[in-house]
């Protein structure tokens, strides 16, 4: 097992190298770089000053040379200074932005599970019934519209229409809340974004639970359990549910790293200072150091996610053996 993990990690390093080169190459062949953008339409900037700026930002090198420089620094833990924020990239990345994004997604994640697991089981037990149809319909409807659409409609109803919830932002700037009141205030601001996350996310979980449950309900041991005359309740929750847990746990484990990745669109719409919003801004300004660090961070998370789910799979299911 340990050997398996080590091998996987070694391979992942190779993959990360490939990803980093691809991303760096793409960022650098973009037609206009950060300095071009800063100086565009400003006749007072001399070409000499522009060249000096490009040098200061490390944009005067060839792609390959630039990549090697970046890689060398990155291996020493130096991911450079963000162009837009003028701070070390790691400081920007691992700031409150990351935790804001994580908090939002984590809360939404828990709520999704709380809704999806019981409903999924109910839907599976009553396959092809009206309840089943209703649950599946609602869950899938959430999967069927883009996030900005839900965000706009929810805001129209709850903020502009009813005035129950704030429109956007993270705190009520008009007030100077501290302590508990501050947390409650932030909570109010996070309700709509979290609802958007949940609407979008609950469908796939529910579908996953339902499918797994259906599979288990048709398994021989469940039939045996029923044949033994066990109560339906016991059959479902003692035998069937436990077995559906295996794939669900691995799936959950694999999803956790993804909670750190931020939500580009939802964060932008609600003016939340999260990591996703920062990423999209960086794309627009061509902030290469930040984008590199962000994308590599995501790549690591993705790899970690698959690794965790594979390992968990082996842990919860003793039949799986890795060599």
């Amino acid at each position, binding site marked *: 097992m340990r050997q398996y993990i080590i091998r996987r990690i070694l391979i992942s390093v190779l993959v990360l190298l490939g990803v980093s080169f691809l991303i760096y190459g793409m960022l650098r062949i973009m037609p206009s770089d950060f300095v071009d953008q800063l100086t565009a339409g400003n006749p007072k900037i001399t070409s000499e000053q522009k060249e000096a700026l490009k040098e200061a930002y490390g944009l005067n090198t060839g792609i390959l040379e630039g990549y090697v420089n970046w890689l060398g620094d990155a291996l020493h833990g130096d991911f450079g200074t963000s162009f837009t924020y003028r701070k070390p990239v790691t400081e920007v990345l691992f700031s409150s932005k990351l935790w804001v994004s994580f908090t939002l997604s984590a809360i939404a994640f828990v709520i999704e599970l709380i809704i999806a697991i019981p409903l999924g089981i109910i839907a599976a037990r009553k396959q092809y019934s009206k309840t089943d149809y209703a649950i599946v319909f609602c869950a899938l409807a959430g999967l*069927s519209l883009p996030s900005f659409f839900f965000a706009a409609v929810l805001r129209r109803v709850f903020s502009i229409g009813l005035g129950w919830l704030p429109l956007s932002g993270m705190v009520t700037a008009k007030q100077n809340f501290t302590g508990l009141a501050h947390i409650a205030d932030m909570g109010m601001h996070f309700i709509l974004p979290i609802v958007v996350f949940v609407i979008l996310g609950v469908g796939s979980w529910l579908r996953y639970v339902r499918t797994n449950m259906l599979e288990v309900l048709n398994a021989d041991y469940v039939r045996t359990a029923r044949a033994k005359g066990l109560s339906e309740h016991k059959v479902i929750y003692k035998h069937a549910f436990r077995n559906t847990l295996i794939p669900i746990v691995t799936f959950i484990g694999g999803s956790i790293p993804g909670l750190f990745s931020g939500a580009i669109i939802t964060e932008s719409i609600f003016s939340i200072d999260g990591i996703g919003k920062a990423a999209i801004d960086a794309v627009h300004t061509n902030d290469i150091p930040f984008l590199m660090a962000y994308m590599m961070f995501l790549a690591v998370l993705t790899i970690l996610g698959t690794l965790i789910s594979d390992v968990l799979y082996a842990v919860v299911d003793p039949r799986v053996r890795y060599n």
Partner: protein
Amino acid sequence: MAEIQSINEQEVIEHEKSQVVYTPGQLVIKRFFRNKLAILGLGIIIAVVLFAVIGPMISPHGESEIFYKNDSTGEIFSGTKEPEKLKDIANVGVYVKGEMDSQFWLGTDANGMDTFTRLMYGCRISLMFSIVVTIIEMLLGITLGGIAGYYGGKVDMIIMRLVEIFYCIPFVPLMLLVSTMMVAFGILPEQKIYWLMMIMGFFNWSGVARMVRGQVLTIREMDYMQAAEAGGISVRRKIFKHLIPNAMPVIIVMASMDLGSFILTESTLSYLGVGISTPFASLGTMIQAVNQSVILKNYLNLWIPPGIMLLLIVLAFNFIGDGLRDAFDPKMKR
């Protein structure tokens, strides 16, 4: 003698005919049609396809035809058909956000174009987009996943690392970059959509490949496959007669779900300003109108119809996918 044999054969066939024996395919169809949501989904898709294909032929208006209103006479006219009326610059203005009436069933949008007509074109382009992307993605994914699973070893190793690399590149930033590059390299706006399709397909094959590879690996371990291999059948026969048909159910289910999700992706891309470019219509560019607070508040006719259309299409594909999955699963006896 030969005659007797042929009579015998005839009998056998007739005997078989009289028995109700379903082929696996028929079984799947039978199970599929037991699922009411799946039937609903199929119905929706057929209706939408008809709307998108036939609609534009019937509609009296064009996709990017602008309508103007002459404030003094109150006349509404098409800039394309009656350009000479445009010359009255003191009074003529674009007929933006016009009301719903018999000429404009859903009114006109913020650029003075007929919403209903654009909805037809929008559905068409969105459907085409998701279908083409899915086909590209499936072709690439099945081929590469199949090769990886079938040959194993170094080939598998390389392909799977490629899959991981593609997996690791975050989608939205990537599309933003790609779109900027497309404009920079002078790709024409009407061709942009085709490029987008190809790129999307290219960047999405990894999921399919991973799944197909898994399927192939499982199937190869099956007893019947082992038996076939021991029988010494040709590689081609092995792949096309056994491996692919057996992996097909999973592939079809995945494809039907992806059909829905790519329509959503298209709308997200439009939201980010990197999708289909104006003046061409797509569901994504139309639904984007919700982001303008004036439209969201006062012009429900501009965003609810494309919203419902999008919802219906994606839901329908998902229903079909779910239905197919349940239907394909031989363990589902209920």
